[in-house]
């Protein structure tokens, strides 16, 4: 397999956990809530997903368990941030730390255990194309995730549900004045974000690297948060950022394998740094930021 083929084959899978988490956070932030606990929700989802899959041999049950765990943790956040109107930044950081701790606790008995990697699904015709063929030989979750990105884009921009979510995020007072139940809508958004983060963690621990190691999420939750903000709350730019991160992390692996004379820590940090810089450049367009920024993001709303 050539280097290019390796990168093409692996990029989408590497992007998938980020994309799942970031798409969930996109809905949460579009509704006006800032949940910084993504890293912890992913970590908890990773541990629960691994443990359930290990014991039941069912990846579907593993994903379901991870989603429920993510929702449960996000409801702790919602209780603090929506119920008691606590500072959303502090509440998010707190549940992030809680999630990391729970993840270590749950995963402890299975440290260094492995799972069978699921099979890949090649799309007929497309997978046989020269050069880009490897792009179309992925596991099923990759296809579902990129499909979901399209669905979320369509919902946000072309459906009444999307209009309601955006309205609540832009001006909760006006949304309430015309009769929407702002807190319920935000609660639902936070739960969705929790489920997505949980599944993102499960993908990382049961499919992408089917091996349990404590701390395996390794900051990808934070990158997902950054993707949403620097992607200026637009699904398309978030997909771009996630794929860029995926490609760079594979590029780093190849460089290491090829014996490039750079410290491995530097190579490992490259995708984080380059993704942030690229997205920061995109979001430095003041006009784009102003038009897309969620006006009420992070502000508590009573009522």
């Amino acid at each position, binding site marked *: 397999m050539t280097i290019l083929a390796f990168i093409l084959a692996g990029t989408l899978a590497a992007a998938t956990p980020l994309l799942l988490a970031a798409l969930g956070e996109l809905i949460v932030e579009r509704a006006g809530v800032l949940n910084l606990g993504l890293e912890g929700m992913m970590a908890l989802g990773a541990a629960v997903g691994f443990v359930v899959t290990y014991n039941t041999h069912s990846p579907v049950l593993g994903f379901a368990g991870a989603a429920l765990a993510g929702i449960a943790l996000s409801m702790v956040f919602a209780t603090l941030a929506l119920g008691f109107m606590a500072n959303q930044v502090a509440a998010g950081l707190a549940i992030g730390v809680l999630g990391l701790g729970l993840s270590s606790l749950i995963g402890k008995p299975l440290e260094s255990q492995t799972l069978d990697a699921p099979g890949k699904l090649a799309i007929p015709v497309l997978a046989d194309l020269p050069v880009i063929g490897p792009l179309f030989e992925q596991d099923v979750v990759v296809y579902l995730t990129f499909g979901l990105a399209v669905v979320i884009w369509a919902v946000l921009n072309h459906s009444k549900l999307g209009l309601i979510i*955006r309205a609540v995020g832009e001006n909760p007072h006006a949304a309430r*004045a015309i009769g929407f139940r702002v807190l319920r809508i935000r609660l639902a958004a936070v739960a969705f974000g929790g489920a997505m983060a949980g599944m993102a963690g499960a993908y990382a621990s049961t499919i992408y690297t089917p091996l349990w190691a404590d701390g395996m999420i390794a900051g990808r939750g934070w990158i997902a948060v950054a993707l949403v903000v620097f992607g200026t709350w637009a699904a398309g730019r978030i997909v771009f950022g996630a794929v860029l991160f995926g490609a760079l992390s594979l590029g780093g692996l190849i460089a290491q394998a090829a014996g490039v004379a750079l410290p491995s820590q530097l190579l490992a940090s490259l995708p984080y740094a380059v993704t942030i810089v690229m997205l920061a450049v995109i979001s430095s367009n*003041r*006009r784009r930021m102003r038009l897309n920024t969620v006006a009420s993001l992070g502000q508590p709303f009573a009522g």
Partner: protein
Amino acid sequence: MAPLLQLSGVSKRYGGVQANAGIDLSVDAGSIHAILGENGAGKSTLMKLIYGVERPDEGQVLWQGQAVTLSSPSDARRLGIGMVFQHFSLFETLSVVQNMALIVPGSKGELAARIRDLGAAFGLSVDPQAMVHALSVGERQRVEIIRCLLLNPALLILDEPTSVLPPQSVALLFDTLRALRAKGMAILFISHKLEEIRELCDTATILRQGRVTARLDPRQGTAHDLATLMIGRPMPPPVHPTPHGLGEERLALSNLTFANDDPFGVSLTDVSLSVRGGEILGIAGISGNGQQELAALISGEIALKSGGKAVMLMGQPVGDLGAAARRQRGLAFVPEDRLGRGAVPDMSLADNALLTAHSRGLVKNGFINRKLERAFTADCIARFDVRTSGPQAEAGSLSGGNLQKFIMGREMMLEPSVLLVAQPTWGVDIGAAADIRQRLVAMRNAGAAIVVISEEIDELFEICDRLQVLHKGRLSPSVEVAATSVAKIGTYMIGAVA
């Protein structure tokens, strides 16, 4: 036949404030009913109770003779109540038709067609595909009204609808409302503008301090009678400035052009003005036409990167200087936004006084002289009749009108050569507003150069020597107040004069 809407003994209390007390109200189909009262008289609270935004503590609401409980705006809409808010409940990042689709069923194509039909029938033309943030204030109001009308309401509530409109648009709005009345709709029209109510309404209910003080036919009494009922004492007489000699030029903008990189902001084009000592220049216009940008460019909040000569203060170029440097040269500024720009809400009045009055000996060698600071603040409170517990009260705890008096007082006590005031009486009760206007005229008579940016056209005609109108970031030529009319200024406000 039972009235369409009837309230009996409705009360609402917020903390220690009795916002509404024992209100009785009855509204008939096919009539325009005015709710008249000062700021803080309880008009907005009453409308929130009718529209289901808030629930009354006591009392009963009857709709077509049946007792109803309104626990949310959707309940009210289901009954057939529509409301146009003073601060619009539109979403700026959505298009007109998307805003409609939020509460009106139907496909976008159908909605766009209905929007055009209603626009044609009631003189409310607006482009369904336009983004709301690109619309003028008048257009936004039309969007709000259309959004209500799409639901075929039996009762339409309008909260201070004319406060944002130029005179010509007010006439159009009134034509629309009369056409709706002719179709049998009931309209609740909330306002504090007496002449409008006399022109438009069939019945008026007057509120003062949360209670109904009168019910009458507004066409019977004079504006003076209505004012007396509304504020509980006769209206203070207006103070017109008398002509007198002018001093030297104090502030001048020459061909100032400012490209705004904020897509929700306004760019200024080729703006020129000149103010001399001893005169008041009024900047009229509907807000959102560049007022904030103009104020920021004069105050120094926005400093030009080059070309300092575009702004001349006391004969010196200051365009590239910041706000502090311009204040040192004799400029004082009362911003439109009291909490956040004019004052820091969480700080005491004394500390807020220090923010701009530090040059008056309140700071020595970098240390604050607390005694002088308190004395200055107490003096300001006493001279400008600020109702507060004292210099240590938090700025955020004052009512809007009282805080405005305090900020006006603080800036006036600096004895500036040039005073820039944005919306001097916005949200201030009638008595205090008259007082602020008198003080501005007194400062003018003492030789200060004053620029007043205001949406209240009557106020500008009362105190200004000259007027210029801001429309879409361009400033009209200057006209003498004595030689013009409200109608003429109105044509500038909608850009009808090139």
